């Protein structure tokens, strides 16, 4: 890992710290401070986008744990997210307090994820991807048809969450709630990458045979990855359900799964920071398109809404394809290069 010069470690503990230098810690503190203060002066449209970004960060970081770190391609992450959302909706309707609902939806999603992760012992690569595709479609069907629990295609109302009497009923309040959970998720996953199971995941991804030879239990490792990743996805789903206040099966279709995969690919596979970048990028992209289409409609006249939906899909596909061809290591790599460039500026060599 590249470090600043003048940074000497006297213990392994110091070397494996998340933020080894004081400068990094200071930057992070400034960034977090800015993130907590600026929404106070923003209008609620931008705050709502920030909320969506926070939730997307949870989803992307959790998928990154499974696909980027452990190498298990999952096309079913959107459905696990949905399991969390529906669990949250059903439990909240029964009057369970939010602080219990949040981990419970994670736990149910983790169970679902591990159940569908079971074939991963025998299946690799593309076969696993297709198995997870089946998981996605089967779960979607359950959301749609188990009407007594999920409300079917009519959807399910979810009340705004409240913690100890404090109700999160505005975009701003939801922003702080999602921010805290997203920050904790990022912190948790960053820490998982440094622990023994995290390094086992990477070993499984890089070479499963060697991993097994050095004593990694393949099945347990893969199942842990599925469980942890789905747990976090369920937490994200819970927040999503409470934020949108209304969930339907279409919200958790295969498009959502593909969206999360695209986030971690555009951000950079296997990198926590990359997943965050990808989540931010792909959440802002459709909003930016909306804005552009609005301006275009004012200049040219006419109604853009008809073609906008189609255009969004096309731009998404195009961005994804171009990233894969021209920037296969994603935004995280670009970020690292930019930092490296400025570190030595103006003497590039």
């Amino acid at each position, binding site marked *: 890992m590249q470090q600043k010069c003048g940074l000497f470690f006297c213990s392994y503990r110091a070397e494996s710290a998340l933020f080894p230098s004081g400068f990094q810690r200071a930057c992070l503190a400034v960034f977090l401070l800015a993130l907590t203060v600026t929404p106070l002066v923003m209008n609620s449209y931008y705050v709502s986008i920030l909320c969506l970004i926070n939730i997307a960060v949870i989803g992307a970081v959790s998928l990154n744990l499974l*696909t980027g770190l452990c190498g298990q391609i999952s096309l079913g992450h959107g459905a696990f997210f949905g399991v969390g959302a529906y669990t949250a909706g059903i439990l909240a309707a029964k009057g369970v307090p939010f602080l219990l609902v949040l981990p419970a939806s994670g736990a149910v999603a983790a169970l679902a994820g591990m159940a569908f992760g079971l074939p991963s012992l025998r299946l690799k690569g593309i*076969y696993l991807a297709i198995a997870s595709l089946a998981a996605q479609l089967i779960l979607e069907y359950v959301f749609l048809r188990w009407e007594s629990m999920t409300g079917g295609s009519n959807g399910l109302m979810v009340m705004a969450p409240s913690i100890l009497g404090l109700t999160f009923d505005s975009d701003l309040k939801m922003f702080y709630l999602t921010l805290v959970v997203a920050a904790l998720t990022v912190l948790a996953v960053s820490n998982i990458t440094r622990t023994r199971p995290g390094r086992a995941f990477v070993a499984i991804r890089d070479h499963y045979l060697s991993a097994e030879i050095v004593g990694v239990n393949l099945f347990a490792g893969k199942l842990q990855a599925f469980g942890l990743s789905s747990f976090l996805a369920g937490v994200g789903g819970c927040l999503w359900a409470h934020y949108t206040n209304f969930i339907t099966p279409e919200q958790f279709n295969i498009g959502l799964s593909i969206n999360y995969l695209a986030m971690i690919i555009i951000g950079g596979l296997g990198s926590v920071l990359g997943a965050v970048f990808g989540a931010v990028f792909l959440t802002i992209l459709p909003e930016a398109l909306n804005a552009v289409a609005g301006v275009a409609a004012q200049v040219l006249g006419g109604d853009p809404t008809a073609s906008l939906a189609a255009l969004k899909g096309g731009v998404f596909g195009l961005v994804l394809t171009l990233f894969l061809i021209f920037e296969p290591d994603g935004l995280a790599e670009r970020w690292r290069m930019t930092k490296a460039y400025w570190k030595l500026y103006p003497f590039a060599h």
Partner: protein
Amino acid sequence: MEYYLQVFISGLVVGSIYSLVALGFVIIYKATKVVNFAQGELLMFGAYVCFSLTVEYGLPFPAAFLLTLGFSLLLGLAVERLALRPLIGQPIISVVMVTIGLSSVLKSLVQLVWGTQIKVFPQVLPADPVTIGGLPVAPVYIVAFALSLALFGAFSAFFKYSRTGIAMRATAFDQAAAASMGISIKRIFAMSWCIAAVVSAIGGVILGNINGINSQLGYLGLKVFPAVILGGLDSMLGAALGGLIIGVLENVCDGLAKDLLSLDGFKDVAAFAVLVVVLMIKPHGLFGTHEIERV
């Protein structure tokens, strides 16, 4: 009972279209080891082009059909050159994602050009049903089934007897050996995408003649996965049988679920439930090659 026979027959017809799409899928997988998630969109594109040529440009159906095949050929070529070739040697997930990206680009193109409304092909075949074994069957079903059988025959012969077909099989078996025998791997890759696009387009046109077309037609591409997994990812015979079996199974399960459990829409997941079971028991399918890993 008659109801189930009817369901069985429509299952066979839908299954023969799955087989066609699966054929394209298998050809790409065999030659290039790429799993194509955009197969359904290739089908949709072909169907829309043919629709456009017959209805909006007023061409007679046979001419429009042939032109459509030409368009699909070019599309396959363009896709391979622009999107897939730069990714040779990249990990599976990148290649899978690029075909997914491609599928959403194609879908949005179709929606931008033709809108999302359902379109109905003009009647090409007579509408009066023919009676087979006491059951009325629409002629378009018979033609669809016959056409896909003929195509399978043609492709089997192509792979067995023609130089190009043999070259494609050689490439599939061992790329390095094929290249050292003077086979252009790039050409083979391009050709397999062309063939896949063309057979999918044929499937699309047939389907359009049966049900009409809309912008959700690409969803059919997902239905192909159970078929090819059941048959084996790299077996043409598997694709043919897998398609038929999944088509029939899906329709019969749907009928049973409606009859016995009064459960609607089971059609959409029946195939995937089968898929999970097949993956658990026999991941390489009925006719797929079992990959052996030596330690």
